[in-house]
């Protein structure tokens, strides 16, 4: 009897949470598919998105920024977090605090401050955003990798690999990276999600990226704006599923030497 009551309670909570999450989604999707004031539904609003000038260009810009941010992020974070786990334990607290800073420092301060710190070669290109996105994403990407590394006896695995003839770079590429691949994919996804959705920094620094373009374009068409929001959401979900699928699969591939 008590168990049944508990089950019923769980089901009610699940139902309420489900409604809370999915009803707005349903409402937004339904609204985005209306054909103006008519009672019929269709994909007009979605077609409208693609017809707007700048769609492809701005998506391409954001894609390039994202790719650079992902590469930078992994190149910096994976070796750093690995080192912290292997021999930098005493700096771990300090680094943890440092990685929190992007959450505390207002984006406006970051925009102006970080821009001044960047080398002049980057100052006038849109790719300066990639560097800032790496910093903004750090609280999340650091933790994703940190958790991944904590779950494995990293020192022993490293010692074993070194003993078997692996140089440090091989230890990193052939042992550590494949071992924490799910975490690397999580960090990658967080980086992508942030780059695809970041508006404030781009706007403050006067760059037109996809999110900035979306904001501008959607001001002319309320149904179109909703379609954009729903579309972005589904796109992000698709990415997430993709990364989970590839990241979670057990790989049998150590880099093959020719």
């Amino acid at each position, binding site marked *: 009897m008590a168990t049944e009551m508990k089950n019923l309670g769980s089901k009610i909570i699940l139902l309420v949470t489900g409604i809370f999450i999915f009803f707005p989604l349903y409402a937004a999707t339904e609204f985005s598919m209306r054909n103006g004031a008519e009672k019929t539904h269709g994909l007009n609003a979605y077609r409208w998105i693609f017809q707007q000038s700048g769609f492809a260009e701005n998506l391409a810009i954001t894609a390039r920024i994202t790719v650079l941010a992902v590469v930078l992020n992994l190149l910096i974070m994976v070796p750093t977090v690995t080192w912290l786990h292997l021999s930098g334990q005493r700096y771990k607290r300090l680094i943890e605090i440092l990685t929190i800073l992007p959450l505390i420092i207002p984006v406006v301060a970051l925009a102006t401050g970080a821009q001044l710190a960047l080398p002049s070669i980057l100052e006038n290109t849109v790719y300066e955003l990639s560097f800032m996105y790496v910093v903004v994403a750090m609280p999340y990407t650091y933790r994703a990798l940190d958790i991944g590394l904590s779950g494995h006896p990293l020192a022993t695995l490293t*010692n*074993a690999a*070194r*003993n078997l*003839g692996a140089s440090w770079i091989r230890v990193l590429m052939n042992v550590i990276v*494949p071992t924490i*691949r799910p975490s690397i994919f999580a960090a990658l996804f967080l980086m992508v999600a942030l780059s695809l959705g970041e508006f404030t920094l781009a706007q403050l620094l006067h760059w037109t990226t996809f999110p900035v373009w979306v904001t501008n374009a959607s001001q002319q068409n309320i149904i179109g704006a909703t379609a954009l929001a729903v579309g972005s959401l589904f796109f992000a979900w698709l990415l997430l599923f993709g990364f989970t699928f590839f990241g979670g699969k057990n790989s*049998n591939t150590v880099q093959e030497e020719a």
Partner: protein
Amino acid sequence: MTTDSLVVGGLTRQFGAVVALDNFSLNVAKGELVALLGPSGCGKTTALRIIAGLEKSNAGSVQLNTKDITNDPAHVRNMGMVFQAYSLFPHLNVAENVAFGLKMRKVSKAVRDNKVNSILELVGLDHHHKRFAHQLSGGQQQRVALARALVIEPEVLLLDEPLSALDAQVRTNLREEIRRLQLELGTTTLFVTHDQEEAMSISDRVGVMNKGKLEQIDTPDTLYNKPATEFVGTFVGTMNHLPTTLIDGHINLFGQNIVALKSGNESGNVIALIRPEAITVKTDGTSNATVVTRSFLGASSRVTCKTHEGTLVEALMTSAATGDLHPGSEVQLHILSKEVLVTNA
């Protein structure tokens, strides 16, 4: 004539104020299995890690087959190592784990497959190629780790307490198997352990370490029967500690005059170190002790007595001779050995 495969000279390692390894020297002959035995924190693992190149020494040298490798990084030393903690790469299956070292050496796939197959057969895991670490028992994981270390045909095999995470039965089986493989392949092996039975049962020689120093290195028999120091005698096997007086190189115990072996400059009041099996209990009417307990161990029995002076003495005898001994029995203790190691009281 045997040649020394591994020559370690004067290794010293300090961690802050702690001296983990103090002028540690060791020679291991080709094809020999040497165990380093000692309590935790005695420096045995540090010694092994320095030999493997996983740690730096403050002083001293390591030579492998007459080549000085003191400053070589770990990955170019041709040594195989098995660790205490499970160390299989979780993203690779058994065959891939074993092949790892060969891949790093750029061995062709055909040769690699061949070697992996034969070594897995040798460790009795020839049907587990495609398994992953999480699908194997602890004993199986260590077998794979052993295969992985041996397949590269290392000049020296280093074993860092590889059995201590396993349960008793598996531990005994695997240690016999390590010895079998080691003899079969003729691999020079250095085996670190804190378990004296493990060290004594499979090694050609055992080095007993204490506080970063090698106290004595000898065959298991010599180590047991002729310990050089009190520490060795006490750490290896059980020892009775009997207070007595040293006069003219002799001690007097239970009415017997016995030659004393000194480990230092002992004189006057000393402690005699005597193995339980070197003491026997007689019931011939005379009495110098009372039986406290008798534990039946099968073929032998352990009899604990209290001398009339109040010292507890342990004797190990065949059970047949102890049948009528009971707590409270008056007995005569008798020492069987002609020489006894003494140490300062």
